[in-house]
Structures are given as structure tokens and as C-alpha cells.
């Protein structure tokens, strides 16, 4: 990470007795694509609005580009926001919307027209200046909101669930476009989202938030492979949790005894918060389990209880022999592999290295 552009130092916000932000600390670098991910009510939107200046912090410090932001109103901050509702001014046309903030910048008419035109071209709406803003589709409104913010050349672009109102196809297309745009302009993007897939696809780093605090701050791969607790693990993707008894070995690895799989040794790096003796749970992603005998790792036996067919993927619920509850396994439907039926007996491949040990 380069020089931090935004520093959050034990940032707090209460509304009366309700604590929306309970001491959030993070550093966000210049040019980074940073996501705030969490369920509704976790404080991610409050944090974004605090950075924009719409929420006064009740504790802690927020600096942007070395400047303390306390008591700095939104119109004096080097940030611009894309609102969830897009907030396109209905009484102005597209060009006037995009040029709204430029009027304060002291540009002459020709410069302004050019800046508006460039911004619209950048988001793929070149020549839309004279369109009425109400005649735009959802995706186009989003692009106008983006152009309107980017034309201001902010140091930080804040995006409040910008894709949640779009349908699936358009959303996936906009994700790719946002990444391209961010690389092109090199501005720091901070994205608020409740969609884990969106965060994984787009971000350099993700802060997972629960109850007004950051539970884990990491890049997408670490977050997915080594979540720090069960809550993060079940929020990011799907995970099987199997109860186990834990014994800690002298080298820091953990020995577990999982019903249906048997004994296994989990590397110290896969133990969230360090291994402890006693009760625990191992987490296994559905795609790290394999139906069938071929491949690496160890083999267990089980019975298929449920088959869910998605076209490219099939999800199986398999009850391993000796286990109390079934595990979910996802298999890619490659050419030549048959989909199993319910009730079928099958070997299941697994590897201790793909498991994570939790104590919560």
C-alpha cells in the first residue's frame, strides 16, 4: 500500500444510546479500491457518510490527505459521493447535472462544456448532455451520478451501494466498468456494499463490519481463505462448520477429531486467532470438498441426501458416515462427469490444509 490518504483513528458515532460506530480504525491508501462490507445496520453507511461529512463524529479522528476533517462541511471536503438513489436532479438535464458542481470552480463556459463532455464520454454517455434526466434508465442514471462526481476530480470517490438497484446482468457489467474506471482515473474508491461477491470482485481490500466495528480487514483472497471468525466466514461465501474436539500440539498445529472425517492436523496458519484446546469447529468451503476418488487429499464415505442443479454447478448435501449433519459440496459440471442421484453412496475427498479452525 502507498502513503495512506484516509486515516480513521478510533472513529465513533452514537445516536443517543445507539452506537453506530464503535471505534473504527483503518488506513486507506491513495488509488486504492476499498470496500466496506457488512449486513444492514453494521455501520458501513454511517462510516461512508462520516467520511463525506454528512455525519458528525462523536469520537475519534478522521484525516483525509493529512487534514483533520472535524467540523469540515461536505462542500469543503475533497470527496464526492454516488448516492444509493443516485440523487439525479430531476429539474436539470444530464449536462446540467454533471456540470452542477463545476459552477463553483470558476471555469469558463467552454472549459465547463468540455469537462462535462469528457466526463460523460468516460462513463459511456457521450452526447447525452441535452437528455432530460427523467428519461434515463437505471443504469444510465448511475452513469450520470458517476460522471457528476468524477468531473469534480475528488481525491476520494464514495459509492453508497451504487449497484443495488440494478438487475443482475447490468450489475455484473457495471462492476467490471467501475474497476476499469477506477484504474483509469486513479482515484481512491470507497464502496459500501452488502453483497460479498461484489466486494470480492471489485476491491483491493475489504473491511468486513459487524455492530459498528471492523471484524476483519484484508484483501479478498485472505478474507475468503482465512476468515478470522465464524461470523465473517459465513458472511463471505458459503462454509460448512463441523464441531470438533481440539488438541494443541507443541509445534502450534491443532489436532482435531471430526465426526465423519476422522483425525486430522490443521496447520497453525489455518487456526483463526491461534489454536486452543477444547471445543471448536472446523470450517470447510463447499468447493474444497470433492465428490469422487481422484485427486489429492484423504477420502471419507457418505450418502447423497440432496442434489441442487445450477447448470454450471451442482450442489450436493452429503451425510458422511458417522456425522450428525450433512456437509454441502459444490462440483463443477465438467464434460464427462455425471450428476449423482439422491441416496447414492459416494467417496468424498478432503484436505486438512483447506480447513479453518474456529473457536467461537
Amino acid at each position, binding site marked *: 500500500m502507498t502513503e495512506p490518504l484516509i486515516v480513521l483513528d478510533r472513529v465513533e458515532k452514537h445516536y443517543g444510546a445507539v452506537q453506530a460506530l464503535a471505534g473504527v480504525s483503518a488506513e486507506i491508501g491513495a488509488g486504492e479500491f476499498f470496500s466496506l462490507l457488512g449486513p444492514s445496520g453494521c455501520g458501513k453507511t454511517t462510516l461512508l457518510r462520516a467520511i463525506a461529512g454528512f455525519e458528525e463524529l462523536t469520537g475519534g479522528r478522521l484525516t483525509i490527505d493529512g487534514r483533520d476533517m472535524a467540523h469540515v462541511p461536505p462542500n469543503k471536503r475533497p470527496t464526492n459521493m454516488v*448516492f444509493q438513489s443516485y*440523487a439525479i436532479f430531476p429539474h436539470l438535464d444530464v449536462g446540467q447535472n454533471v456540470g452542477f458542481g463545476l459552477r463553483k470552480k470558476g471555469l469558463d463556459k467552454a472549459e465547463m462544456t468540455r469537462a462535462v463532455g469528457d466526463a460523460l464520454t468516460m462513463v459511456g454517455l457521450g452526447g447525452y448532455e441535452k437528455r432530460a434526466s*427523467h428519461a434515463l434508465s437505471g443504469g444510465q442514471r448511475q452513469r450520470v451520478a458517476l460522471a457528476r462526481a468524477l468531473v469534480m476530480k475528488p481525491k476520494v470517490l464514495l459509492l453508497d451501494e451504487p449497484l443495488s438497484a440494478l438487475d443482475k446482468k447490468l450489475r455484473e457489467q457495471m462492476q467490471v466498468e467501475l474497476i476499469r474506471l477506477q484504474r483509469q482515473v486513479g482515484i481512491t474508491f470507497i464502496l459500501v456494499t452488502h453483497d460479498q461477491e461484489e466486494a470480492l470482485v471489485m476491491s483491493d481490500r475489504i473491511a468486513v463490519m459487524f455492530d459498528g466495528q471492523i471484524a476483519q480487514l484484508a484483501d479478498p483472497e485472505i478474507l475468503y481463505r482465512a476468515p478470522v471468525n465464524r461470523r465473517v466466514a459465513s458472511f463471505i461465501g458459503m462454509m460448512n462448520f463441523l464441531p470438533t474436539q481440539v488438541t494443541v500440539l507443541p509445534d502450534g498445529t491443532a489436532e482435531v477429531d471430526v465426526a465423519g472425517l476422522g483425525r486430522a492436523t490443521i496447520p497453525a496458519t489455518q487456526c483463526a486467532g491461534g489454536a486452543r484446546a477444547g471445543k471448536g469447529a472446523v470450517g470447510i468451503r463447499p468447493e474444497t470438498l470433492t465428490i469422487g476418488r481422484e485427486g489429492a487429499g484423504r477420502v471419507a464415505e457418505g450418502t447423497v441426501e440432496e442434489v441442487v442443479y445450477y447448470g454450471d454447478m451442482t450442489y450436493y448435501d452429503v451425510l458422511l458416515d458417522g456425522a450428525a449433519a450433512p456437509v454441502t459440496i459444490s462440483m463443477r459440471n465438467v464434460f464427462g462427469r455425471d450428476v449423482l442421484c439422491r441416496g447414492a453412496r459416494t467417496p468424498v475427498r478432503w484436505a486438512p490444509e483447506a480447513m479453518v479452525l474456529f473457536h467461537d
Partner: protein
Amino acid sequence: MRRPGTLAIYAAFYLVFLYAPVILLPLFAFNDGTIIAFPLSGFTTHWFAELAQTDALIDSVVTSLIIAVVAAVLATLLGLLAARAAARTMFPLKPGIMGLIMLPLILPEIIIAVALLVVLSQLGIALASWTVILGHVLLCTPFAIAILNSAFLALDQSLEEAAQDLGTTKLETFWRVTLPLVMPGIVSSLLISFTISLDEFIIAFFLSGNEPTLPVYLWSQLRFPARIPVVMALGTLLLIASLVLLTTAEYFRRRGAARTGQDDHGGFM
């Protein structure tokens, strides 16, 4: 299956009851006779000519118009501030304060009129047009707030935030975003306040001093049967004026709604 006849007859009766008296107005305004009764005796425009020569009546119309315009502007201005505060901010005792402001909606006008008269005479203030304006502002402000409040609530708050985010101050935001978007509400508020003030009688009667408003003047003329056709002629003119006003307002409202692409709901017609 419901029989369609009953409701249709009810609706017809309702409309006749509502509008028959209004239709009598132009009918007798052009009737050549001082007695308001059928059969009509002949067509004349004499009453309109006489109307133009009755200075006291013209004066009262002018007085009423001035009072109505000033009261409508003041009430809408006050309503704008109060509605904005009520819709966008929290302050201590807000429900109580808003309740007190809205009270004249349900308070009998006679109470407001008498109370104002007592206070003004205690203070030794002479009654004039502006004392009527005072009373009418009190009466119209709750209507203005009710209308403007719904206009503010219909306004997406993130629009104002977006404007601020783009560098404008609070005042510029109000001027460039809020005001244009609540403009239909402001126009409605002006029209309704104007109408309420124009035909208000009780407060005007108590507080108008020696410059009677139109309703007060008309009431004083009812004692002279010979003057009634002139009153009818005036009523006809007012009827036409208010129809023109309403149609214009509705035209602008629809055009505004079409331009900003809102769904067309509400409105008068």
C-alpha cells in the same frame, strides 16, 4: 351485481345541489329585473355597467385583492420556513410547537377574530387593512405548512445532500435545488392562501376598520334589494376569474410534472 342506477342518481343529485346555485349567479346577472325570481324578464348587461360605476364596490375589490396577495405571500413565506424545519430537522418540543402553529386550522374563526380585536384595541392600534392581513396570515399559514410539508417530504433528501457534496453551501443548495423542486407546492400554497383570504368574512368583518373587504361590503349591501343584481354581476366576474386562475394553475402544474417526469397525481382537475 350492483344496480348501476342508484349511485348515478345520487351523484346527479349531489352535483345539482352543489352547482345549481352557482349557475343561478350568471343567470340573474344578465336578467333585466331587480327581483331574483323566475321567470326571467329579459337580457341586459345593465348590471355590469352599474357595477363599473359603483366606486365603493371597486374599492372593496381592490382592498380585498391587496390583502389577499400580501397575506398569501406572507403565509407562504412563513409556511416555507416552518415546513422546511418540520420536515428536515429535529428540535426540542417540535410536536408541541407544530401543533400550536397548526391550531388555527381547527380553532373557530370567531375566536381568533375576537381575540385579535381585543389585543389590538388594548394595544391602541387602529384597525386597517394590515390588521386584516395579520389575521389572514394567521389563518392561512397552517394551510401553507400542510401543503409545503408534503412537498418537502416528497423531496428525496439525498438531492440536497448531493448538491452539498458537489460543493454548494446550504443557502445555494436551497436556491438551486430545494426551491425549484418545491415550486409546485409554493404555487399551490399561494393560490390556496389567496383564495382563503379573498372570501374570508369573520376576521375581515372584525378587523377591517373603515376599509371593508369585498365580502364585508357585499354583506352590507344585502340590505338593499335593488343592489342584488349588481352583486350577482360581480359574482359572475369572480366565478370566471377563479375558473381562469384554476385552469392556469393546473396547466402549469401538469407541465411541471411532465418536465420533471413525475407521475401525475393530485392536482385539481
